[in-house]
């Protein structure tokens, strides 16, 4: 187990190194006049050249990357070129916001997917049809359209929730809920649509197995059979989909945080990438890679807990 974790850790480090270099190269190739972007159209060519030198952009690519990497291994990710803030500060203030949205959306999606998936598999008929059509629509409609519809109805017309920004929970729990509910709802619908199909299929497949017939023959109640045994077997594939969805939701925040003007990693990603804020983009890449590695590791561990056959040596 420890060896497995060490291997995954090592793979994560290699992944960060490779992806950070590729990102650096891509940003370099994308070009863009970063100093001009910072200073605006009014700055003279000389001032732009001075800023370019100040940022070290007149150095060769490899020198720039080596400089970044050497500082990064010590935990110094530099300062944003467009705000002057330490990248580590930007990331630390924003990561909890994004994880709250993604974590909340994942939990909501998983719970509702289990309820509707089991319901559709066990009841069949019109319920199954409604769930399947609903899942199809939820999967097909982009989450930003869902977000816009939710804002229009629940924030602008009904004033039940906030349309923009986020209130920290330590400031006001009610305020916090009023700002995170709609983004979480917008994010979770698409994810739920994917997971519900997986749950439904797995349950339908499992209930026809011999062990289910045996459990029923031994007098176990239907709810015990379904929720303690069938779902446990169906949970493996659903967990894999959930993991993929979690990572997908991370990228979903890029749009959702823009629509709701939420200061998370997604919003920072859009802004930093479009401006060419290399230090911040690099910091975001590192954080996203770490999150993906951790999530995949947790899914592997979860799979092992659910199914002894895949337990790790």
């Amino acid at each position, binding site marked *: 187990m420890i060896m497995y974790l060490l291997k995954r850790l090592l793979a994560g480090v290699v992944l960060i190194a490779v992806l950070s270099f590729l990102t650096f190269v891509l940003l370099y190739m994308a070009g863009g006049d970063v100093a001009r972007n910072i200073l605006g159209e009014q700055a003279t060519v000389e001032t732009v050249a001075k800023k370019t030198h100040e940022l070290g952009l007149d150095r060769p690519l490899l020198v720039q990357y080596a400089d970044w990497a050497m500082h990064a291994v010590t935990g110094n990710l530099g300062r944003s070129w467009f705000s*002057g803030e330490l990248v580590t500060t930007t990331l630390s203030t924003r990561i909890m916001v994004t994880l709250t949205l993604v974590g909340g959306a994942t939990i909501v999606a998983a719970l509702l997917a289990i309820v509707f998936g089991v319901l559709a598999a066990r009841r069949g008929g019109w319920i199954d049809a409604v769930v399947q059509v609903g899942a199809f629509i939820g999967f097909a409609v982009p989450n930003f359209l869902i977000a816009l519809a939710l804002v229009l109805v629940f924030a602008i017309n009904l004033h039940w929730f906030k349309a923009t920004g986020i209130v920290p929970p330590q400031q006001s729990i009610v305020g916090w809920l009023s700002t995170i509910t709609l983004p979480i709802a917008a994010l979770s619908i698409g994810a739920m649509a994917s997971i519900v199909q997986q749950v439904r299929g797995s349950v339908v497949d499992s209930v026809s197995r011999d062990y289910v017939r045996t459990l029923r023959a031994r007098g176990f109640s239907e709810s015990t059979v379904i929720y303690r045994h069938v779902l446990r077997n169906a949970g493996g594939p659903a967990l894999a989909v959930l993991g993929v969805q979690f990572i997908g939701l991370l990228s979903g925040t890029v749009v959702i945080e*823009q629509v709701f003007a939420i200061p998370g990693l997604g919003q920072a990603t859009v802004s930093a990438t479009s401006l060419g804020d290399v230090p911040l983009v690099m910091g975001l890449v590192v954080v996203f890679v770490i999150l993906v590695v951790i999530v995949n590791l947790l899914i592997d561990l979860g799979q092992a807990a659910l199914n002894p056959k895949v337990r790790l040596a």
Partner: protein
Amino acid sequence: MSRWKATAAVVIVAALALAGCAGGEGEGKPTDGVSGGGHADKLTLTVIGAPTSYDIGAGAEWGQRSPYFESVFDTLLRQNSKGELGPGLATKWTYNSDKTVLTLNLRKGVKFSDGNPVDAKAVVASMERFRDGTSAQASTMKDNTYAAIDDATVTVTMSMPNPALLNMLSIAQGLIASPASFVGADIATHPVGSGPYILDTKETVTGTKYVYHANPDYWDKKNLHYDNLILNTMTDPTAILNAIKSGEANGAKFTDNNAIPEIEAAGWKVEGIQLDFQGLLLLDRDGTMVKPLGDKRVRQAINMALDRKALLETLQSGHGTVTQQVFPPSSDAFDKSLDSTYKYDPKAAKKLLADAGYPDGFEFTADLNPSFQTAYDLIGQQLKDIGITMKTEDPGQGQFIKALLAPKYPVGFMGLQADHNDWQLANFMLAPTGTFNPFHTQRDEVDGFLKTMRSGTPDEQVKAAKALNKYVTDEAWFAPLYRVQGSYAVDANTTLEYWPTNASPSIFGFSPKG
């Protein structure tokens, strides 16, 4: 604001500025923010774009980002909501006879939020940091030297007169920060000034939300109408619209004028100013890259080929005013009659082109700004009607301005900031050394106008500015299409006086109703 009011305001600004330039004395009455106005707990505004740095040596800016700086720093002079210059940290300002030394008398007893005094030494240190730094406008102060004569007197010495100096001291160039903050590692995000508000760095999320509380020691409290100020940075038009419609702000800058009916339907009032112009920059006026563009008849033909009214309607839904000059109405140089210099007349344009020796037209490649793709397409079609083929080339993401100023292209289309100060505008895009004169076009006439604008009497300066405007319009250095309406919306509980000289309203221009 109606046109006559705007004109009156401009005349007052010009008179005040020129009085200072003429070796007179500016002193004065405090610049009131808004007349009357009550007091409220909080003002929440949405702003497009966050400050790149609060370090005045690296990120001092005005324009769209002025609220961030105006809230925490004082400027030496201050403009009020009518655009008039008045005292800020300096209560009196005097030029010497040849207008090369400006003496500023500072307000006494003012302190920075770190407790240090705002004295002459601090002002000199601050101005030197701006001059030697990399803020966008740093080069405008590069030849100045500063001296602290005593605790409350500063001199600015220039090698040549600078008619825009007083105006500059009321914007980014005049921002004063505590020198003690210059050594701090967090200077970019922890501003220390003497302005009306103090940034709450704990509640602030850099790049997104800036929270300020009223400065208890501020010297001009009567112009402060709110105890707290929140600036939410929003770039997404949908988020801005949602914030407006759901009432989550008191004021909002927005870029999509098509949203005006929707915003007004939500009970908000929309104020508009027209500062920038959009149009073709015919930069290769000497024909070094594309020979025909060196002939003024060709450039005039291009101006005559453009149906400005239709383009304004199509590209801006009519929100703006067609123009043929680069100087804005708030400037001395502006002349309304110049806006009818070129009548839309493709036939006459074609004839003029033939007279210039190009009966079959010619071809050139313009620097493509993808944000204005539709404008390029429509202009291209109208030029095609008189035989000119305008090809476009995308120089790459974020490379448009760099390529234009290199210069790699003879022509480009963009919205260009038209400063209300004639001298600043002339030096930005008309002088041989101007940033947006990348081919360094030089004409003796222009040099003469600039010389008079720099050193003439106030009357001569205004006449020279007007003559310069007429010259570049007649010579068709540009093909401006229209001045775009910059729009700002305020909710039903807020009153706004939108000063005519800046893209963003002053924070002193807001007050609660009732």
